[in-house]
């Protein structure tokens, strides 16, 4: 048995099976939740190596699977990434199960996760661009809302990803040539330019960012947040794989300057556009751009500190989006929530959910006591050493977002107009428990950073050459 078979082929097969039994949605949802956590469990009890002397409970898996002459390779150090992707999918599926909400994440989320892992596992990894394109097409199916029928964002993501694929494939061919023969500065610049263009399209760097808020706005909340969480995460990890795989690329200063530039542009545009948004879903879309920018800046540092901050920043990135999604899903279940003005005095009816939403927002800008504090503070410190203009941009972004969130806080906490109006709390006990648990996890991981953050550092084990 091989690792790619378990974490890539098997989930696609299960996804197809769930497609057949999707009429019984609750059962399909439950199976998906259990299957995802089973996949995570497998990462603990298996070892990916030819042979070894691990404890008795360990199951040995072959690292590679050959398909049509090319191989998919998952190694021991990639198990954390595999577990992370399945944990994210399991968490989203679990919330959908608890809320009884219908979503195409069941069962297409399994296919999307498998394809993204396949894109990271394929060797030679120039072909990852093609698999990312297929993953994006699956993501489109998840994000397209039949209720609204709007497809403006979908069409844009289709165009941008396809163009990105073309650039990355050409860059991959160019870089593969550089492995066998020496390259000059001009070739390096050309390859970096091609690769940069590809990732600009894929990550939604300004001015190619418009699909992100459109997808966020046109799709159902769980679908858009899931797609906008896993797709950029996988793409950034693929970018790291490129940097790790090609010596002349990772040694080029141009690449890291480009990462800085893209990160700064995303941080600035994401925060500024987010402040001027009235629509809640669009605001979340812009916030994902903002946070993706911060991740790129961390990588652009090209130092051991930067490569430590990057995985640490993933925890607040994932947890805050998940908390925001859960909170808004609970509120929008019984209350029409479209614009920020709709949140007026919401605290009195939805105390847990509205607080959860606010905490998720403040986590994204690194509020003390939240788990966003440590990585963002470290990022500010590291950037301040040699890249003062980038620090100023980041601080400006965080500053205007803080004012915007304080304004939102005041809207949510606004006293009810009529003092004699009877206020009914509309959250169920399960909903309160879920939000409370997420907030506790958020605060606890912020207070005790050594509890969870070190495990996230394992992500960088797959990119050992970058750390040297």
């Amino acid at each position, binding site marked *: 048995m091989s690792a790619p078979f378990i974490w890539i082929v098997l989930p696609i097969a299960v996804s197809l099976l769930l497609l057949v039994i999707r009429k019984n949605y609750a059962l399909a949802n439950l199976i998906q939740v259990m299957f995802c956590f089973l996949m995570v469990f497998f990462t603990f009890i298996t070892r990916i190596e030819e042979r070894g002397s691990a404890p008795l409970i360990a199951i040995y898996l072959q690292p590679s699977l050959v*398909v049509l*002459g*090319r191989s998919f390779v998952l190694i021991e150090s990639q198990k954390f990434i595999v577990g992370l992707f399945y944990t994210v999918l399991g968490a989203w599926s679990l919330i959908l199960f608890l809320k009884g909400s219908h979503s195409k994440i069941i069962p297409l989320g399994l296919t999307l996760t498998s394809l993204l892992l396949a894109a990271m596992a394929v060797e030679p990894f120039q072909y990852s661009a*093609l698999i990312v394109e297929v993953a994006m*097409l699956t993501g489109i199916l998840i994000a397209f809302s039949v209720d609204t029928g709007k497809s403006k964002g979908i*069409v844009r993501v289709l165009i941008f990803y396809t163009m990105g694929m073309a650039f990355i*494939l050409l860059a991959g061919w160019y870089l593969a040539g550089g492995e066998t023969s020496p390259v000059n500065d001009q070739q390096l610049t*050309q390859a970096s330019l091609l690769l940069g263009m590809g990732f600009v399209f894929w990550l939604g760097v300004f001015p190619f960012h418009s699909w992100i808020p459109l997808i966020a706005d046109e799709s159902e909340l769980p679908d858009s947040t899931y797609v906008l969480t896993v797709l950029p995460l996988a793409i950034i990890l693929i970018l790291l794989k490129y940097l790790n795989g090609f010596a002349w690329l990772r040694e080029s200063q141009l690449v890291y300057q480009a990462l800085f530039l893209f990160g700064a542009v995303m941080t600035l545009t994401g925060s500024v556009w987010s402040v001027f948004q009235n629509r809640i879903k669009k605001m979340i879309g812009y916030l994902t751009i903002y946070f993706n920018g911060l991740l790129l800046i961390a990588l652009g540092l090209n130092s051991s500190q930067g490569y430590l901050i990057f995985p640490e920043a993933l925890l607040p990135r994932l947890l805050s989006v998940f908390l925001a999604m859960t909170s808004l899903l609970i509120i929008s279940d019984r209350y029409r929530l479209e614009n920020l003005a709709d949140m007026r005095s919401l605290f009195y009816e939805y105390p847990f959910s509205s607080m959860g939403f606010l905490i998720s927002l403040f986590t994204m800008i690194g509020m003390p006591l939240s788990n966003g504090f440590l990585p963002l503070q470290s990022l500010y410190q590291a950037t301040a050493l040699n890249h003062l203009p980038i620090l100023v941009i980041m601080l400006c972004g965080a500053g205007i977002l803080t004012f915007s969130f304080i304004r939102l806080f005041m809207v949510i906490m606004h006293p009810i107009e009529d003092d004699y109006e009877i206020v009914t709390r509309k959250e169920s006990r399960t909903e309160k428990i879920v939000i409370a648990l997420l907030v506790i996890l958020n605060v606890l991981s912020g207070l005790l950073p050594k509890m969870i953050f070190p495990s996230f550092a394992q992500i960088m084990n797959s990119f050992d050459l970058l750390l040297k």
Partner: protein
Amino acid sequence: MLVNTLLIFLALAVTVLILVPDNWRWNVFGLVMCYLIGFVLIVQIWPLSLAAVKLLTGFIGMVVLSTVKINTPELPAENRSRSYRIFLVLVLSVGWIIVTATTAKLNEWLPIAYTNLYIGLVILFAGIIKFAVSRQVFDVVVGLLVFLCGFDVVYSSLEGSALVTAIYSLIVLAICVIGSYLEGFSIQEEEA
């Protein structure tokens, strides 16, 4: 040599067919011609079976995409004005000039046959213009497929493997299926 020159002129004519007429049948016919030109170019480098896979995939995709148009009532066309058509031809001509001017330079670092590179880029540019100026989902998807067809002519000349062909075919088919699915919704919206 003569065949290649003919192919170049045919490609230029086909790009006009894709971009200028507002009847979707002409656009689809243009795309089918692109696949045929691509097949003739790729079969010179690759085994017939692999080149045929791309051609057949393209044809099946076109059938899937056309089905949604055939099965829905014909809506009044956009009625493009003559000046708009002239504008499109001019934009396309600028694209041809850019391709003609840059192909020789590009050929220095993309070591493939000149004809393949030139035709690939001409088709690719036509695709970009098509999806850039279109608002209808159907037209955007046709533009995207033209872009992919042009890119495939270039990339297949550089790199060829069974896995790439398989995934590429899957992508083309998936885009066609998703395109017809989205087009179905947009037609429903227009009718409503």
